[in-house]
């Protein structure tokens, strides 16, 4: 598969949502934990040698699974080969948790589900589609009934599957009574 390295390098220079020097071990035989600058930019996680400007590599964070690893690490694996793990070692449990939280929200698919959820909630409360004002209510990617990938998302983050469908209108403060 072709991709332009320069495009990815340019992206890696963009402001990071999160960046830190932490330990990292790639899923290669005999690989050991090394100090790396790890940088989250949109849905890509870049990793650098600590003394180099260009990244060694990038991980696209779609259809991945973020797992807590003892004592204070986490791992990233991908759906098609779940046993192949990129392992990261943080300096504290707190730092580890921050990374896990950030990475779990880093996918475009997560953003899409969040958007559908908010759109649906607002529509239920106001009777109006909030996307209409932007002229994008017809776009395929924002549709409620877009086919959901099955068996994938729930592995990535438990409880995510079907959020858009089981949105909690009946449990909302004020419930349906809030509609005007």
């Amino acid at each position, binding site marked *: *598969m*072709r*991709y*332009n390295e*320069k*495009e*990815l390098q*340019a992206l890696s*220079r*963009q*402001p*990071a*949502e*999160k960046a830190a020097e932490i330990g990292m071990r790639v899923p290669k035989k005999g690989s050991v934990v090394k100090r790396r600058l790890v940088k989250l930019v*949109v*849905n*890509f996680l870049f990793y650098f040698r600590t003394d180099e400007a*260009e*990244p*060694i590599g*990038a*991980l*696209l964070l*779609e*259809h*991945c699974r973020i797992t807590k690893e003892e004592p204070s690490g986490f791992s990233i694996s*991908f*759906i*098609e*080969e779940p046993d192949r793990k990129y392992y990261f070692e943080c300096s504290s449990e707190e730092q580890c948790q921050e990374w896990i*939280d950030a990475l779990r*929200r880093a996918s*475009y698919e*997560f*953003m*899409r589900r*969040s*958007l559908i*959820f*908010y759109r649906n*909630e*607002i529509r239920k*409360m*106001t009777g109006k589609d*909030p*996307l209409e004002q932007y002229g994008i209510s017809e*776009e*395929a*990617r924002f549709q409620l009934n877009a*086919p*959901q*990938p099955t068996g*994938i998302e729930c592995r990535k*983050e438990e*409880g995510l599957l079907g959020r858009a469908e089981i949105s*909690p209108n009946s449990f909302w*403060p*004020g419930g349906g*009574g*809030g509609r005007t």
Partner: protein
Amino acid sequence: MKLNEQSVAHYAMSGSPADHEGFLRRCSTPGGRQPAAPRCWFVLKGNLLFYFEGQESRPPLGLIVLEGCTVELCEAPQEFAFAIRFDAPGLRPYVLAAEEQEAQEAWVKVLSRASFGYMRLLVQELEGQLHELQLSLASRSSAPRSQARASAGPPPDRPPPQPEEGGPSAETEGDEGAAKPPAPVGRRRPAENWACSPACLPLNGGDSPVSPETSCFPKLHDWYGQEIINLRREWLQSRALGGGL
């Protein structure tokens, strides 16, 4: 530079919804070596534009990451052409041609809005709108949820304790117990965040994927889920008491 190519290709071929797809002809490539290429099947998924040899062929031939680029109509030997241009120096544009004007316009529209940042702004905006709605609802009716909330305990997304621990905590608790949405009041409005680069968002405590100091979607989900879990527990208990199983 490495990329988890296998996983990227897997994502390209997975059943997750495509945001747009169709045939396009590549008028040139970043390498610039090829003349007009045969048409390829293009699939947009989020901020990633994949191309395949044909509609059914696998795996993808290539990937274009739609970040830091602009998409615009352009002049080319082919009709219905448009270009994806990158802001960074030294990056050549992709010039692609659709098969008809309608398709050309549709592609330019979706590609120019495909970036992660655009999606994030939208989510942030709707998050803010929902928050406002919740606040206005909460100020109108506060009774219905208070009882349930009391049994459910404090929402798990409570902001970290304020520095002034000795303050009127009981009163604060009372406030929290009312039908207030699980977000700290006084959050920044999304509009203010628009001016700031994406980088500053999660650095700001990382409370929300899209805007800081806000309850976010998974937290809301967990929070409301808590009530369901409690109700289920009560139901199970009552069934155990009454039914014997």
